[in-house]
C-alpha cells in the first residue's frame, strides 16, 4: 500500500501571530513548525507502515525554506518526500492550495491520502474535501479511527453527537482529528535517517499547474478585515460548602447557559 501524507508548515501556535500588510500571516515573523495536527496524520501513516508495510511519502506545498519541515516529518520514519515550491503559490486560498495538492497527488501512485483535518494557522478544514472533489475520489473526513483492510478503508467520522462508521474503496482521501491516536516522538535514528531520505522538489510547471489557477491574485476568498480573538473570560467557580447550595447554583448556571 502506498500512502501520501500532506503536511503543512505553520507558525508556532505558542507564538504571537503577525498579520502582514497583505492580510496573510507573516511567516517570517516567528518560528515555524510542522503543523501539530500533522503529528496525528503522520502517526496514523506510521502505524499502517508498521502493520501493513505501507510506503509513506510526505507531501508539502510551501517555500524552499520549508524543507526542514519535510525532514522533520520524515524523521518519524516516513520513506520519502515531495515538495512543491513555486513563488506563484504564495497567498493561495484553500482552493488554490487544493489544486496544487491534487496535481501533486496525480503525479504519484497512491492508495490512501491522510490529511490532518485542519491546519493550526487557517483552520478552514476545506482542503482535504476539496482535493477529493478535484480528484473524484471518496472523501472520509474527521476520522477518529481508521482501518484499512484489503482495498477498503473504514473510518469513524467524528461529529457533535458521536461518530458515523464510513467506508470507502481505495483510493480514498481521509482527514484525521486529534482524538485518533497519541503521536510518538521521532527517534534519534529517525532524525539521522531523515537527512538522507529521497526528497523531490518540483515546481508548478513540473506538475502542469498554471500560475493563473493559484496565488493571492486568483484566490476565490478575500480577506477584508481581521481582529484578534477576544481574551477568554474567567469561568464561574461554584464552591461546595457541604450545605447542598452548590448543587442549586450549578443547576441555575446550567439553565442560564441553556445546557438544561
Amino acid at each position, binding site marked *: 500500500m502506498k500512502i501520501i501524507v500532506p503536511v503543512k508548515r505553520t507558525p508556532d501556535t505558542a507564538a504571537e501571530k503577525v498579520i502582514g500588510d497583505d492580510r496573510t500571516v507573516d511567516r517570517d515573523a516567528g518560528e515555524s513548525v510542522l503543523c501539530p495536527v500533522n503529528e496525528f496524520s503522520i502517526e496514523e501513516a506510521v502505524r499502517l507502515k508498521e502493520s501493513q508495510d505501507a510506503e509513506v511519502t510526505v507531501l508539502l506545498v510551501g517555500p524552499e525554506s520549508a524543507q526542514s519541515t519535510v525532514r*522533520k516529518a520524515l524523521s518519524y520514519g516516513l520513506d520519502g518526500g515531495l515538495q512543491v515550491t513555486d513563488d506563484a503559490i504564495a497567498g493561495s486560498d484553500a482552493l488554490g492550495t487544493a489544486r496544487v495538492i491534487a496535481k501533486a497527488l496525480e503525479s504519484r501512485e497512491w492508495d490512501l491520502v491522510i490529511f490532518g483535518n485542519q491546519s493550526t494557522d487557517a483552520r478552514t478544514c476545506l482542503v482535504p474535501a476539496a482535493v477529493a472533489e478535484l480528484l473524484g475520489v471518496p472523501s472520509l473526513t474527521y476520522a477518529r479511527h481508521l482501518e484499512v483492510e484489503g482495498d477498503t478503508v473504514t473510518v469513524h467520522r467524528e461529529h457533535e453527537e458521536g461518530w458515523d462508521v464510513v467506508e470507502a474503496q481505495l483510493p480514498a482521501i481521509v482527514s484525521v482529528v486529534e482524538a485518533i491516536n497519541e503521536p510518538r*516522538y*521521532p*527517534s*534519534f535514528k529517525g*532524525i539521522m535517517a531523515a*537527512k538522507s531520505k529521497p526528497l523531490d522538489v518540483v515546481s508548478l510547471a513540473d506538475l502542469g499547474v498554471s500560475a493563473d489557477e493559484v496565488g493571492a491574485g486568483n484566490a476565490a476568498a478575500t480577506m477584508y478585515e481581521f481582529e484578534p480573538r477576544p481574551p477568554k473570560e474567567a469561568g464561574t467557580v461554584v464552591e461546595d460548602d457541604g450545605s447542598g447550595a452548590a448543587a442549586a447554583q450549578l443547576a441555575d448556571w446550567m439553565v442560564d447557559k441553556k445546557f438544561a
Partner: protein
Amino acid sequence: MHRLSEPELALIEMVREVAAERIAPAADRYEREHTFPRELFDLLAGLDLTGLPFAGEVGGSGVSQRTYLMVVEEVTRAFAALGMGLSVHTLATWGIDTYATPAQRERFVPDLVAGSMLGAYSLSETGSGSDAAALTTRAVRDGDGYRLTGTKAWVTHGGVADRYLVMARTSDDGARGISAFVIDADQPGMTVAPPESKIAMWASPTAQIVFDDAPVDADRLLGGEEGRGFGTAMASLEGGRLGIAACAVGLAQAALDEAVRYARQREQFGRPIADFQGVGFLLADMAARTEAARALYRSAAEQRDQGLDIGRVAAMAKVVATDAAMQTTTDAVQVFGGVGLTTDVPVERYLREAKILQIVEGTNQIQRLVISRSLTAS
C-alpha cells in the same frame, strides 16, 4: 567550540520536548511512590537514547561524548533519578563494550544499547567505598567457571537492573587481583536486598547485592582474563564522572529555572522579589556558577572525544559541577523562602538530590585526591 550538527541539534530539541511533556510531569509521582521509572527508561529506549555514544555495530548512534552528555543534562533537568539512571546505565554499558571479547561484546552489549535491558555497575562494598581495591567479594575457580560469594553495596538500579557489571576478587593480589564479571538479574545464587532508605532519588533504588556461592560461567569473565577488573572499574568511572557532572548541571539549571520563575512572580513590599538585589545577585551567581560548570564538563567531554587522557579534568568537572549544584539548589530554596522548605515545590527535592551527586561515582574528596595527585606526581 565544537559545533553541533543538524541532527544533533534536532536530538537536543527532541529530548527537551520529551523531557518537558513526558518526563518532568511524571517525576514527582515516581519519587513519592519510590518506584523506578521503567516506563520512562523504555520511552528513552524507544527514542534511541539509551545507547547514544556506542558504535553502530552494537546498535548505537555513535554520537560524541559531548552530545551524549548534553542529553543526560536535559533528562536530569526534568528528572534527576532518570538522568542519573541513564548515566549509570551508560557507564556499565561502556565498561562491558570497551573491555569485552568480541564474542562477549556481541552477546552482552546490544540489549543494553537498545535499552531492552537496564544496566548497573557494582564496585563498592560496605568495607570498601573510596578504597575500592580493598573489596572482598570472591570469585573462586570451579571447574569451567567461578563461584561468587560476597556482598556488594550501594548498587544503583539494584533489583531493577537486568545486567550488572560486577567487580570481584579472583586473587589476593590487591588491585591486580580484581576481575570484572557480567552478571544478569536471573543469576542463580544472587539475591538483592531491600533498597536503602535514603535522602533523595527515591525513584532510583540503591541496594545491596548478595552472592552466595553463585555459579558463574567462565564466559562471563569480562575480557576473558583475570585481574583486569580494577582497571575496567576505574576507566568506566572516568566517563561516569562526566555523566554525574552533566547530571549536576541539569539539576542546577532546574533549580535556577524554578528560582527565576518564582522570583519574578513572588511579590513583597509591592514588587517582585527579583527586583531586590539581594535576590537578583543570588540568581546571578547561580546562573554564572551553572554556566561555568557546564563549560567545564563540555570541555572535558571534548577532550575525551579527541582521545586525550581525561583523568584529571573529569575529576575537576565532577567536583566543580556537583559543588555548583549543591550551592545552586541551596540558593534556590533560599529564594523560595518558607515555601521552598515544603514539598509543594520541587526545590527542596533538588537540594537533597544535589547532595547525592557530591558523593556518588567517587566522593568529591576522592576527586580532589585524583586532581592533587596528578598535579604533584613526578
